[in-house]
């Protein structure tokens, strides 16, 4: 059913989305935390910067990232100075670009979830001798869980569905940057609709299964109380 190229693209996509989601959660959470708690005058500016990639069409974002990460761009200069070479056409280039691209989808839900907790749970945790990290992992994380899950879903899905940015900076290199979305696009462009359908349907099926089990699991975990009259 799948060509070898398809399989490779699927594998690459999962790898990319997983790594990006993990990194996004690691980077996005402190940003969201800061935004939720700060009274700093820079809050507005930072919020705006985080949200900005949203508004740019992916291909445009990709275009500018290509310039910025190229040998003459400021990110490129930086990575070259570090001896890493330039990022476009590499897997890690996709990772970096996807992080920019999907950041707002991760930061916003986490920020909202933390804001809506209020300060009482944190105060209670502090009086119970929980330090900041302890409070974070054992109080904030579980209480704001829906926000974190939404963030992870949006981040993962957005990366899987990412296309324009990857197209721009990936260079369509098999095993390295040719992800499923690009592969499907190629099938469509090449008028190979049958193969496009197979790949798209698999992707939908996969997404359905992942999302569904996630929601189902979340539902299970929640406190269920049977109430019966009589």
């Amino acid at each position, binding site marked *: 059913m799948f060509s070898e190229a398809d399989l490779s693209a699927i594998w690459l996509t999962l790898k990319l989305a997983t790594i990006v989601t993990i990194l996004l959660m690691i980077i996005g959470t402190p940003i969201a935390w800061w935004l939720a708690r700060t009274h700093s005058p820079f809050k507005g500016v930072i919020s705006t910067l985080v949200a900005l990639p949203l508004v740019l069409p992916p291909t445009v974002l990709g275009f500018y990232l*290509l310039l910025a990460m190229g040998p003459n761009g400021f990110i490129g200069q930086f990575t070259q100075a570090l001896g890493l070479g330039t990022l476009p*056409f590499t897997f890690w280039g996709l990772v970096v670009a996807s992080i920019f691209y999907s950041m707002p989808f991760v930061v916003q839900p986490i920020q909202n979830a933390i804001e809506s907790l209020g300060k009482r749970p944190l105060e209670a945790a502090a009086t119970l001798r929980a330090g900041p990290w302890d409070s974070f992992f054992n109080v904030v994380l579980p209480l704001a869980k829906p926000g974190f899950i939404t963030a992870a879903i949006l981040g993962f899905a957005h990366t899987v569905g990412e296309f324009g940015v990857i*197209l721009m900076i990936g260079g*369509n290199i098999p095993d390295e940057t040719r992800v499923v979305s690009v592969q499907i696009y190629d099938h469509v462009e090449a*008028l190979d609709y049958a193969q496009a359908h197979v790949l798209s349907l698999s992707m939908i099926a996969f997404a359905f299964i992942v999302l569904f089990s996630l929601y189902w699991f979340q539902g299970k975990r929640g406190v269920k109380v049977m109430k019966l009259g009589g």
Partner: protein
Amino acid sequence: ERITIAVASNFTAPMKSLVAAFEQTSKHKVRVAYGSSGKFYAQIKQGAPFALFFSADQAKVSALIAQGLADEKSRFTYAVGRLVLWSNRDNLFLDGQHFLATDNYNKLALANPRLAPYGSAALEVLSSLGLLQQSKAKWVQGENIAQTYQFIHSGNAELGFVALSQVMRTGKVAHGSYWQVPSQLHQPIKQDAIVLNSAKNSAAAKAFISFMHSKAAKQIIAQYGYEHV
């Protein structure tokens, strides 16, 4: 009358000049939708309101004819693309064939051969030169020829195959190193146009097609680095 035409995106710049010139002398108006030929094919199948379709290749036009969406008789080749090996850096090479053989570059950009005629032409060139296997590891593919150009222009790929029309400004290649690929190394890159069934009787479509065959039009096309037939 106003018509909407679909034009392969590699032909964006010349078409803008062509439409401007056409509208100066004609009472008809032309709206242009630019995009990839594959997408236009799908859209036309779904009833897109295009009068004419200027494809980047011949395959999509043939497919439309096979689907009965256009009349074979109205088909014509409006431009023939020329392939160049180009780099953003001055004095990188003079003889592209030789330089390619040295393997002394980081990335070689080309358009995706499955999608873009310039890509399949580049592939032919590499195999004619016997460099197919050797260069493969350094390929980066753009979805279309414009993207391929960006790869090179931004310096991310040291060199690559692009359309002459992209690097030529007012009849000359503006900067960087380039090697015009000898045309015997690949099949001619013929870009075909066709009148879609919905515009069979459109006066504007007829007028525009006859304009395309005019001398003025051919001159504009040549200026942008295309050959014409």
